[in-house]
């Protein structure tokens, strides 16, 4: 089968959208810490942290441009340890995706459709993502091209509406709470950074895998810009304490302003851009998850297991959390931080280890392989 190819630009867009969706959702840097008005500083920290993650994940992937993470771990660690490592990564796809869908569905239920059973919302979202994943990564890439501009336009518009109502006095005093809350604030988003593991699955599909690190960094830069401007404007409109108290600050902030007599409560705009972004992320997760699982179980075509995987996703999104309080405790820094770090560092410690050992003991071996 011919490998499908996506452009590096599309890869950047996918990562950007996935990363920039998180602040639209719960804005964890604001809600999960008590940095309050200094949350923007945590966003800067996130950039540094994610950049490191990118070097870790994408950097290794770019060294094996033809291999996705499963093949790479087979290559570096051998079949069985490789499979174990891959299962950790696949679990992160599974869990991150179901978590994000669940949060989205929670928001719809709390804010818009209180009587709709949640399973219909998560199931429809996953179903739509599955159709995208079924069409292949090229389609996901093209879709991200299409959605990127829509997403950006919506975010700009919604941030623009906030801008005129914002009172930037709310951002004072600057950094008066010390550095610790700022650090804590960056933990949860960094933990969510395990979504970057999809990059490891996407690298073999890139037109130009050598520049993958570069593309990913651009995406993260853009996403951090969105996060910073969102958090600044939300704090400026709602106030620091209120912003941290609300469950979905961005949605609440947009709902809380009147653009004009006839245009108010446009929070659906924020929700829409969130939905679009979530969809891109979700279909990438579904694709990567199914692709990786098919690899691990030795199946030819990932499309065959798409449907069962989808069912697992739906079930997981419902049964993973009994109630909102559980989501909340998962998103607390002391849980999400270690969890996310485990998902990223556990596999990659071994992979890098394997890579370096190979490098040291068998430089000539590798050369032979390249010649072959």
């Amino acid at each position, binding site marked *: 089968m011919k490998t499908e190819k996506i452009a590096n630009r599309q890869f950047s867009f996918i990562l950007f959208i996935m990363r920039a969706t998180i602040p639209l959702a719960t804005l964890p840097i604001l809600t999960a810490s008590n940095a309050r008005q200094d949350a923007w500083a945590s966003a800067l920290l996130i950039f540094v942290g994610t950049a490191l993650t990118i070097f870790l994940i994408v950097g290794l992937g770019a060294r094996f441009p033809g291999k996705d993470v499963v093949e790479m771990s087979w290559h570096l660690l051998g079949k069985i340890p490789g499979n174990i490592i891959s299962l950790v990564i696949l679990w992160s796809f599974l869990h991150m995706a179901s978590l994000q869908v669940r949060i989205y569905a929670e928001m719809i239920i709390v804010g*818009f459709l209180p009587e709709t059973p949640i399973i219909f919302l998560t199931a429809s979202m996953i179903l739509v993502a599955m159709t995208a994943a079924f069409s292949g990564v090229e389609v996901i890439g093209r*879709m991200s091209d299409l959605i990127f501009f829509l997403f950006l336009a919506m975010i700009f518009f919604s941030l623009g509406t906030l801008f005129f109502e914002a009172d930037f006095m709310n951002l004072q005093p600057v950094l008066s709470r010390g550095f610790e809350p700022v650090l804590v604030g960056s933990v949860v988003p960094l933990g969510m950074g395990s979504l970057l593991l999809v990059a490891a699955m996407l690298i073999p599909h890139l037109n130009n895998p050598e520049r993958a690190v570069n593309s990913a960094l651009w995406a993260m830069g853009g996403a951090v810009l969105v996060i910073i401007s969102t958090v600044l404007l939300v704090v400026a409109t709602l106030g620091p304490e209120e912003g941290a108290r609300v469950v979905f600050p961005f949605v609440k902030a947009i709902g809380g302003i009147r653009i004009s007599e006839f245009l108010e409560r446009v929070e659906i705009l924020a929700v*829409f851009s969130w939905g679009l972004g979530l969809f891109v992320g979700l279909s990438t997760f579904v694709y990567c998850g199914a692709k990786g699982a098919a690899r691990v179980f030795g199946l030819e075509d990932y499309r065959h297991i798409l449907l069962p995987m989808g069912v697992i996703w739906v079930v997981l999104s419902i049964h993973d959390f009994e109630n909102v309080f559980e989501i909340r405790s998962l998103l607390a820094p002391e849980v999400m931080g270690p969890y996310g770090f485990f998902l990223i560092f556990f596999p990659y410690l071994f992979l890098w280890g394997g890579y370096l050992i190979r490098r040291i003991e068998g430089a000539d071996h590798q050369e032979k392989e390249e010649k072959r």
Partner: protein
Amino acid sequence: MSFIRFVSRLFPRKKKKINMDKLDISQLRELTQKEKLKPKLQDNLSLVREYYGNSLGLQVRELQIGRVNVKAAVVFIEGMVDTASVEELIKVLVINTVSSGEIIPSGFPFIKYIKEKVITSTMVEEVEELEELFDRVLRGDTALIIDGLETSLTVDTQGWKTRDIEESDAEVTIRGPRESFIESIHDNMSLIRRRLPIPQLWAEKFTVGSLSRTQVAMVYIKGLAGEGLIKEMRSRFAKTDTDGIIDSGQLEDFLEDTPFSLFPLTLRTERPDRVVAALLEGQVAVIVNGTPFVLLAPVTFFAHLQASDDHFEKVPLGTFIRILRYVAMILAIFLPGFYVGIVNFHPEMVPTALLLRIASTREGVPFPLVVEMLLMESVFEILRESGIRLPASIGPAISIVGALVLGDAAIRAGIVSPPVVVVVALTAIASFAVPNFALGIAGRILRFGFIILSSIFGLFGLQFGLLLLIVHLSSLRSYGVPYMAPAAPFIMRDMKDNIIRGWQWGQVYRPKLTGFREPVRKDPRQARRFFKIFPHDEEGQDED
């Protein structure tokens, strides 16, 4: 074996007469294909008559050629030929061969003599098989069957009535060429060739349909259209196995990949200027005899939203019109669903005064809003459909019934609420702004889907629908070209002539995905010169 053949030659008349009544069409066709012309004139003529079934129009004019008094016959179909040409043919055969007094050089075949020295027509071909003879005669040629020869000559005497080249009804433009294609493939080809007088404009011939024998031409600029695309088209033509096609729309079915998609993957146009513009971008045109609609492939979604006018008007105007059209397309697809979703599920988003209005007008309306909306949309679709088929003389009647009786009376009777009528009317107007009929229909069908989705999940249903639509549109390909190009995949260079309309001097590059064989249209440096705000400043400076 040879003995049997010898015996059968002894008794030539013993051959069994075929009973045509017992054969069905494919057997008849097979029989015709087997049949060859006989040496004797009368045999041939009876063969022709037998297979033609003595239907209306067949004319057999027997005559004798020249001094040698060779018996011959001219066979043609009345109405398909230009009578003057046939007369001319007969004249040269009967009179000229006599008056010239020339003697046929010995050893010079008679048929060659007739072909090369007698007949003055532009096109003469030798034909030996009955199938081919019929093929030509039925296309308006005249067959000359000469006694004693197993080869007949067909002479081009085509001349039937065709429609004049008129202005297009379906694709009207304010500014720009007025000509449009007609039903004759040759006239259509000439319309294109007149605009592209280069030998590299190639037209490959195909015959589609075992019975309709429709002539189809695939037109492209050699060296500009991708070879892969041309090969692909050829292979698809080879697979068009059918008994007949009437219109290019039927051919479209064979050429497309996604039978369930609502979106047209080839562009149908009546306008030669449109075809030429497409050819210049490396696309391929398919002309089908008997229909004025020419197919263009590969095309993108955005091409369907463009009209020729855009390029002929000034740039700001063209861009404005284009953006207007995109807005109209979006309205036509989403507006009714949006209305249902927002009023039924998110009343908080409707301005208070408007919501009160809507509520008060809906007071006493018996249906839920969704049903009301679906009802009115269906009524509108029915109205539109019946309006198309009606003769112009009673066309106004339908608009009176539709607009006055249905619209006004339904509101007065309290069956529907006025805002719904407004929304439906707005959507209808918006859908007429989409220049391409096929895409317009796609939008209209989608609209119903969106209404239903919004009635289930509100605006989130609309969102799910939008996402599905995006997935579908992104996965479509028209002959290898992504349908949503240049938006997805995003190609900055091609934006100048898709979302907006760029200046003609700025059209430096051909679209990346179709015109890749020679991406540069013109000298890029020359285009750059136009971007200078103060053109005088550059005097004396040299480029690069």
